[in-house]
């Protein structure tokens, strides 16, 4: 094995996570650090941005550039970073509430623009940080702090939503299967374009300790010969309500935003004669 320059220690920050004992997010964090080791990304070339939530605390636990922004706005924040410096690897992380509830309006646009970033949602089907209200992925009937009489709302299906948005990489992982999660993260970060990973990451505190077991029972890997390039097939697989398929469910290569932008700037630059004062010509009567 080749010698690695950066080890997991290089990526870990001095801050100790304040997550509850048994929280699924611990192994998401570890998997992410391991994927950085796999990819040997220099820490200062990484920017991890997030919104607000237990899961959104993650950037603080990683020794890279980090931005713990406001609730629901990780995606536009990440967009601003990426477009400003395409050399930086940009990773947005957060929860199911942060991403699919308050942040829902931003995802389709980053996806269709194919902005080169990785978006990891730690899906625990609950609002953890605010102590247990229903999230967009909470199952029907569930009693939470805001659904005393049982949740009435059909949950969303993040994976099929992402396929409909034309995200160019869509995958699902489970924080109870760290090895597979590392593999998926590594692929996602390596993907050129908007890559999305839903990580099932239980919240034992507000959804019970048996979550890990319940999810494990419903997990199903993709068929051996599965080809993630067919949108319709991917949509069908995502539709399966009885099982969670883990793995890369959809993948496509299409031009990334920053590449197109670069070409545009080159065209534009050719139209410019010299320095800024030439702009004054625009105002000549």
């Amino acid at each position: 094995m080749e010698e690695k320059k950066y080890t997991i220690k290089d990526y870990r920050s001095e801050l100790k996570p304040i997550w509850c004992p048994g929280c699924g997010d611990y192994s998401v964090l570890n998997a992410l650090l391991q994927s950085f080791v796999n990819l040997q990304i220099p820490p200062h070339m990484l920017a991890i941005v997030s919104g607000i939530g237990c899961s959104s605390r993650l950037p603080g636990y990683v020794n890279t550039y980090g931005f713990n922004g406001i609730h629901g706005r990780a995606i536009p924040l990440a967009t601003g970073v990426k477009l400003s410096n395409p050399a930086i690897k940009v990773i947005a992380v957060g929860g199911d509430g942060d991403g699919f509830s308050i942040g829902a309006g931003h995802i389709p646009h980053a996806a269709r623009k194919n902005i080169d970033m990785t978006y990891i949602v730690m899906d625990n089907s609950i609002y953890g940080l605010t102590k247990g209200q229903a999230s967009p992925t909470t199952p029907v009937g569930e009693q939470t702090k805001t659904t005393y009489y049982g949740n009435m709302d059909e949950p969303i299906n993040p994976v099929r939503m992402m396929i409909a948005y034309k995200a160019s990489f869509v995958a699902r992982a489970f924080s109870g299967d760290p090895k597979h999660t590392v593999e998926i993260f590594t692929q996602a970060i390596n993907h050129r374009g908007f890559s999305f990973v839903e990580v099932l990451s239980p919240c034992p505190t507000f959804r019970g300790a048996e979550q890990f077991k319940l999810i494990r029972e419903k997990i199903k890997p993709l068929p051996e010969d599965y080809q993630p390039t067919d949108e319709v097939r991917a949509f069908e697989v995502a539709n399966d309500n009885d099982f969670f398929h883990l793995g890369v469910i959809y993948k496509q290569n299409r031009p990334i935003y920053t590449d197109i932008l670069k070409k545009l700037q080159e065209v534009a630059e050719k139209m410019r004669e010299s320095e800024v004062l030439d702009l004054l010509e625009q105002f000549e009567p």
Partner: protein
Amino acid sequence: MATNNIVIGIAGSGGDGIISAGEILVNAASSEGLFVFMLKSFGAQIRGGESSVRVRMSSEPVATQGDKLDILVVLSWKDYMKFQSEMLLEDHVVIVSDEEDKFPEENIPIPSEKMKNWYKVPFTKLANESAGTTLAKNIVMLGVISELFNLPKAALQNSIKKKFDKNITEIVEKNVKALKAGQEYVKKEIRKQDSVLFEYTPGEPRIVMEGNEATAFGAIYAGVEFYAGYPITPSTEIMHWLSIYLPRYKGVVIQMEDELASINAVIGASFAGRKAMTATSGPGMSLMAEGLGLAGMAELPIVVVNVQRGGPSTGIPTKTEQADLMQAIWGSHGDAPRVVIAPSDVEDCFDCTVLAFYIAEKYQLPVIILSDAFIGLRKESINPHRFKDLKYGFKKINRRMTPTENELEDYARFKITPNGISPVTWPGIEKGMYQAAGIEHNEKGFPTSDVSIHAAMTKKRWAKFNEIKREFSFERLYGPEDAELGIIAWGSTKGAVKEAVTKANANGIKVQAIIPQILYPFLIQPFYDFLRRKKRVIIVEMSHAGGFRRYLRGFIQFGDFGVKTVSYRQTGGAPFTVGQIYDKIVQEYEKKDA
């Protein structure tokens, strides 16, 4: 009445080419070195509704559109009806209208004594005859009025050439023919009875800018690298302009899905080390409240332009108002620091934008530029030389302060310093890694809920204000210092106040005006100096609720200076006239010893 200062109003329907005509006129006048001021006004329809333009030109500097028209040109009386209240007429007004307009004369809402000088011209017929198309009737009209009132004729012809793409000679020629047809018609058919005549000596050509263009230009001048925005009237021209020109300087312009996304993208870009900005109007500003707080907390420089419009809510998108001041200062939850600057005319849009980047980058906080529809959408002619050496010139504006090698050793991004400014890094800088956050944090950027750290960090974030107050003291002052009557106004109200003050003093009514450029933090010293001699002060603003008056009183106890304040407010829509302000000055001047 030969004059070197003339106000022309033109009204008609959307298809009449009125705006083009106005622009050609403005360009002609500017190329002759004249001072020009041009306002457009439209109905609610996107296409085919009524439209109007008002052009003031003068060989002396002008600060307003002029209260009343010397010349009224009407291509359609029906459409003119919609602009009655915006188009007041001088007693000596000259009216030029379309002979073919079938509008019943008795319904024209102009008193007969102002209809004495009325010329009717068959614009359409002349256009068809000369250019072979009715579309040229706006140019015929320019021919008519240039001949009638001695407007710059050669310059008009040049402007037409420039407007109608030099390459399509055919079109240019047709329009030049139309212009001449108008002029010939006057020579042959009209016996001039009125006395309105424009006279001036040509000077060095001036350039023409709209306020929103000046803002965009200022941003490029200041080195903006990233613009994210979402269209909204009356600010969108800033984005239009930048989307053409910023990419030519390797900059990024991205249309986001909404204003929440825009400001967060701008914050992301600033985090990545870029000079970044967005522009919007009221509704977008409300949506940016949370993001503005984040930029303040994360100490990231951003520039946000609010081109104010009539409110509240969707309000009147195309018209002006000054009712967003208090929101700019206080609009985010928590003690969220931001600087607020207000341009007072088109040139000032440029200056304020350059200043905004300077302050944002130096102090690492959000700077809000409060423009409005009145400034943003009007055109003014400007001396091109003024852009050559500016204090915070292109590329001369330092980017935010970065840490030294030494400071990077155990880097504390939010280090508490006496003036609140701490060196900052961005992704890509080795050893500069840190956590930016909207949550309260310690010097390293790690989250905390410790009360004493919260107090210390809040103090640090606000310490910048003290330094800003030390660095700046500029306010615009008009009129004699020893006047006992004062006026305080801000932003686009400057024009009317300035002209009214000049007029009053010329008439022996001593009055002095002060117009702040940096509104927040409040630079108190110039006001103290201003108030020392005052007995009574009029506070002028275009807002019913009167935030400016509350704001000033919140910072200045006028009573301590023995000064009485009078609030002069008007709901938005139409800007103040010089006459309104003048009358108010006279009224308060007479009360001054009461």
